[in-house]
Structure formats: C-alpha cells, structure tokens
C-alpha cells in the first residue's frame, strides 16, 4: 500500500516535469524556422501530452484517459507526421521562414507575458485543487495562448497548421486533468483531430499547386479596396 503511494507521488512529480517540458516545447516551436523542425517539435509535444494522459489515467483509474493517450500517440505522433510528409513531399523539408514578422527576443518576451497572464487567470481556481490540476491547467492555457500567437505570426502554411494543432494540444493538456472521469469528449475530439489535419494537408497541397507556394503571407488578395478585375496570377 505504502509502495503504491510512493509510486503515485513519484508520478505526480513526473507529471510536473512533463508540464515544464510541454511548455518549453511550445516556446521552442514558436521560434523554429524550418517546417520540419516544427513538425519534430510538435511530435515531441504530442508524446508529452500522451504521457501526461497515461499518468493521469493511472492516478485516477480512468480507462478513457489511457485511450486518449493512445489516440494522441497514434494520431499526432505517427499519423499526422506521415500524412504531412506524404502529401506535402519535399516542401516540408526545404521550406523555411527567412524572416519572422516579429523577431525572436520579442516573441520570447510575449510568451513570458502570456505565461504570467495565464497563471494570473487560473490562480484563484487552484486553491484546493490537486497538484496535477495545478500544473496542467495553467500550462495548458499558456500553451494555448502561445499557440494562438504562433499561428498569428507564422507565414508558412505547414507551421501555421502545426501551430493550430499545438493549440489543440494545449486545450487537451488542461482538459485531461480537469475532466478525468468523462474523457468521452477528448475521445471524440482526438479522432476528429486527424480529420482536421487531413483536410488541412490536402488544402495546403492544393494551395501549393494552384498558388505555387505554401507561403500564406502571399494570400492577401481578399481584402477591401482591391479591384476584382485585377485577376489572379498577376501578383508579382
């Protein structure tokens, strides 16, 4: 009995370490230039999410969370990278963003600000909450916010899409800790995540074929004040 408690205590602490790594992965993902590096980070982040789901599943005796962990591994660490490399081919290896809209130090400062902000938001909720919630909720919210920021400043289609999935990871990282006994939501959403990426990948591919680039910053035709008569293809 005593041994079990020691194991559980250890697992809770491991979960905290994973929380730190999870947050770190979001920050590094924000600063990476190359599409493939972003993908690699995303895979690692997803594995961290899955491990946290396994630990929480063990601690709360929740089979659903175990399945959530499995789905995360299969979908986000195996299927999505394969899908992306297959549909996008060499594009994912060669493309990199040469200049960021916002430079790295400023981005890091913003990420720091978001971290403080998300702790500030959830701090009143953590009184009396257990240690796993105290880690997962603020970190999850923070990764979500950093993801939104990353998505906003990215100019390449693939990193933008992966930032979108990183937001998903953040929401789920918080979700698995606070809704331990009703993980049916996560199950449905996990399966649905594969569909989202499939669609995004096909879309990015069509985009690459038709527009000739996966650089979304070139997607600026639709705005006010532009004459429709100026047909497509004429953009420099």
């Amino acid at each position, binding site marked *: 009995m005593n041994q079990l408690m020691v194991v559980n205590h250890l697992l809770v602490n491991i979960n905290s370490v994973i929380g730190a790594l999870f947050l770190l992965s979001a920050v590094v993902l924000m600063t990476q230039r190359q599409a493939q590096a972003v993908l690699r980070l995303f895979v690692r982040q997803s594995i961290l999410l899955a491990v946290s789901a396994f630990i929480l599943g063990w601690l709360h005796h929740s089979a659903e969370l175990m399945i959530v962990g499995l789905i995360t591994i299969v979908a986000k660490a195996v299927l999505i990278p394969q899908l992306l490399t297959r549909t996008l081919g060499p594009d994912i290896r060669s493309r990199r963003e040469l200049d960021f809209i916002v430079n790295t130090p400023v981005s890091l400062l913003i990420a720091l600000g978001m971290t403080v902000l998300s702790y500030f938001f959830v701090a009143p909720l953590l009184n009396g909450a257990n240690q796993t919630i105290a880690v997962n909720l603020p970190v*999850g919210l923070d990764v979500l916010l950093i993801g939104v920021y990353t998505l906003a400043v990215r100019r390449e289609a693939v990193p933008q899409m992966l930032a979108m999935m990183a937001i998903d990871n953040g929401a789920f990282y918080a979700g698995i800790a606070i809704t331990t006994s009703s993980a*049916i939501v996560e199950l449905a959403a996990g399966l649905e995540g594969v569909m989202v990426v499939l669609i995004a990948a096909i*879309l990015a591919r069509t985009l690459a074929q038709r527009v000739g680039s996966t650089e979304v910053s070139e997607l600026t035709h639709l705005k006010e004040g532009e004459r429709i008569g100026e047909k497509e293809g004429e953009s420099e």
Partner: protein
Amino acid sequence: MIIIAIPLVPTLAALIALLTPRIQLIRLTTVLGTFATLVLSMIVAHEITQRIRLTVLPHWIGVGGLSSLILVLQGFVALTAALYSWGYMKRVTSLHPQRQQQFYVNLNLFLASLFMVPIFLQPALTWVAVELTTVLSVFLVGFDNTPRALEAAWKYAVITIMGATVAVLGIFLLLWGLLTLHVSIQTWDTLKTAAPHMPVVQLKLAFVLIFIGFGTKVGIVPMHTWLPDAHSQAPTPVCALLSGVEVSTILYVIMRLWPVFEQIPGGFAQNWALVFGLISVGTAAFLMIQVRDFKRLFAFSTVEQMGILLVGLGLGPAGHYAMMYQLLTHAITKSLVFYSAGAVFLATSTLDIASVKGVIRSSPVAGTTLLFSGLAIAGAPPFAVFLSEFALFRASLMSRHIIVLVLLLVFVTLAFFGILRHLNHMIFGPPSHPRITLPRSVIWTLVIGWIPVLVLGVYLPASVHHLLTLTTLALRR
C-alpha cells in the same frame, strides 16, 4: 425518432451521391432529401408548440423551442440551396459532371453536420458537431479551386478551427465545475442549475474562452476576418447556407450556454455581448460602404446582423424575443439575398460592383430580386427584417439602453445607405452586359425564397409567434 432522422436523411443522400454517377439522380435525391428534412423539422416544431420539449435519448438527444426553430431554418435554407444548386451548379461547372458529384456529396455531408448541432443535449457533443461543420464545409468554400477560393478556404479552416479549440477549453472548464460538484450528467440543463455553485472566476474564464472561440465562427469583430472571404468565395448556394444559417447555428451554442453565463454577477456576459455586438455592427457598417465585391457586401451584412443579434442577447430578457425574431428573419432574408446575388453573377459573370450596371434591363428577374432583397436585408419596410429590427429597437428603449439604441440606429442607417449605394450603381443605368435567361431552378428558388420574406413582412402567424415565445425559454435561467 423523427429528430434522429433529420441528420440521417442528408447522410443517406450523400451516400447515394457517392455511389451513383448519374448527376440527375443525385440532384433529385438532394432536393427530395432536403425537402424531407424540412417537413420533418416542421413536424418537430409543431410538436414543440404542443409539448415544449421532445427527448429521444435522455441526456443525449432532444429538442426544445430554440433548437426546433434552428432546425426549421436550416431545413428551409437547405431546401432552397439544393434547388438553387440544380441549375446554378449546372451552369458554373458545365464541363465537369464529376465535380458536380463531388459538390453534392460534400453539400449533403455539410448539411448533416449542421442538423446535428441543435439536437444534442450535451455541450461537448455539440462542440464535436460544430467542428464537423467546419471540416465538412472547407472544401465547399474552396470549391472553385481558384487561388482566391483556396485562400478563403485556408483562412476559414485555420481561424475557425483555432476558435473551436479555444472554445473547447471553456467547455472543459464548465465540465470541471460539474465534476467538482459531483454532477455526472453533463447537459445544458445541469450546467444551468449548477452554475450558481461554481466559482465566479471559473465561469468568467469559461465564458471568455467560449465567447471568443465560438464568436470566431459567428464572425464577431475582431475575429471576423475570415468571414467575408469564405462567405463570398464559396459557390452561391453554399454562401446562402453559410451566411443564412451556419453562423446562427453557431450563435445558438452561445445562446444555449447563456443562462449559465448570465448568472455571472455584475452583468459580465451581457456587457460583453453589448460591446462586441455594437463593435461588430459598427465595423461592418463602415466596411460595407467601401466594398467592391457584391457578395462580400452581403457577407459584411452578415457580420452586421450577427452583431445585432448579440446586442439583443445583451439586452437581457427584454431583448430576447426580438432577437429570436431577428434570427428568423435574417435566415430567410439573407439566403434570399445570396440567391439574388448569385442570379446577378450568372447574368454578368463578375462579382465586381463597378463593372456591373443596369442589371434590371439585362436581366429583369435578377435585377428586381436583387433590388428588393437588398432593401429587405437593409431593413426597409414592408419586409420581415424591418419588423424584427424595429422590435429590437423597441426592446432597447424599453430596457433603457438609450446609448445602445442610438448607436444601433446610427450604424443600421449607415449600413442601409451602404447597401443602397452599391445596389443603385448595379441595378440602374445603361446595361453593361447582354441579356441572359436564368436557369429555371434558380427562378423557382427565388419564388420560394420570397414567400416567407413577404408573408412575415406583413404579419406574424400565431403559430410562429408561439414558437418564438417558446424559443426564449432556452435563454431563461
């Protein structure tokens, strides 16, 4: 059981469209399928007026007044969109029958996902249905495969999926609140009763995440950037569906959670709704003046109308009836406007306002219907939107929101003249394009679309009034 059949019918139609290459058969099944869903949803609405609630699977699937109204609106616009697609898609994709098949498979799947949103009793399942509506409509938005359409589809997918993910964390927070109170059933109703026992901070955080998240897909300013693109680049029947009912369907999710958020002390949620509603109406009104693409003009009108609905939500119980009324009139009028705009597109093959002139001479049907449906959506009497907007103004006066009323009046007037200015340019003057006859199905759609706009413009049948009164129950604590 009827309720479950509603999303199943379009799923079956999608299956048939997938299996048979005969385009005539596919068109027919789509029209008949959507007709069946409209009849079914009207039966459901009729039952609701007698029995207030219908439950199929307790805690899982059921319908109340608000959901049945949404179902009827979806059914109506689905039917008209299916009918419109018959001739419209034939003409715009004349050389590729296979593309038409793809279109119909996609359209039916999208319809199925739309019908799923209002029938679930659990917020989590509703969220999954909302995500499905995005995933299944992305290729409809990008259907034209032009760089512009793909750009719109990309923005639509990335921004709205991001929004949904933000919203899901809000839903998680609410479910957490239920768990800590040891409530194991996670429906709209249990959330409503549990809300007073949840920490205020938790409700606030959940509200902000859900409001921003789903608000992104409703097109609330400043998260609206994708909307004018997606709602103008998609093929016209899809535009009608997106602008007419999809946005309202997502707003429905916020409405279902409204009794929960209304309990946050200090009118927190109401103030957010008022402020963001007014910002949306104002921004859209100004942007409508300077658009150059007439489908975009009406897409911005959707942003404006969603803002008006939010204001109605924020006015509290006084504004709820008027808001539901506006929801109804917007759905029927906005779809009609897009059908008219599509008819003008068929007649001129351009979306550029500046290069279209004298439509009323080159295509009298398209010109007339665009003129009057444009007036109808702008809020001119004697059409339906005028009455509902008037009801909303009255509600804001009654609830003593004078500043809100003044701002609304200014913005709505501005939007009115914005629409009128562009219409005036397009419709009158010497014709810029040769005469053309419209496909018969397009004309029939316009006829069917005009019926409710005209009827509701002069009087409100007692049964509709009764249903609208029942819909406000969903917003009550």
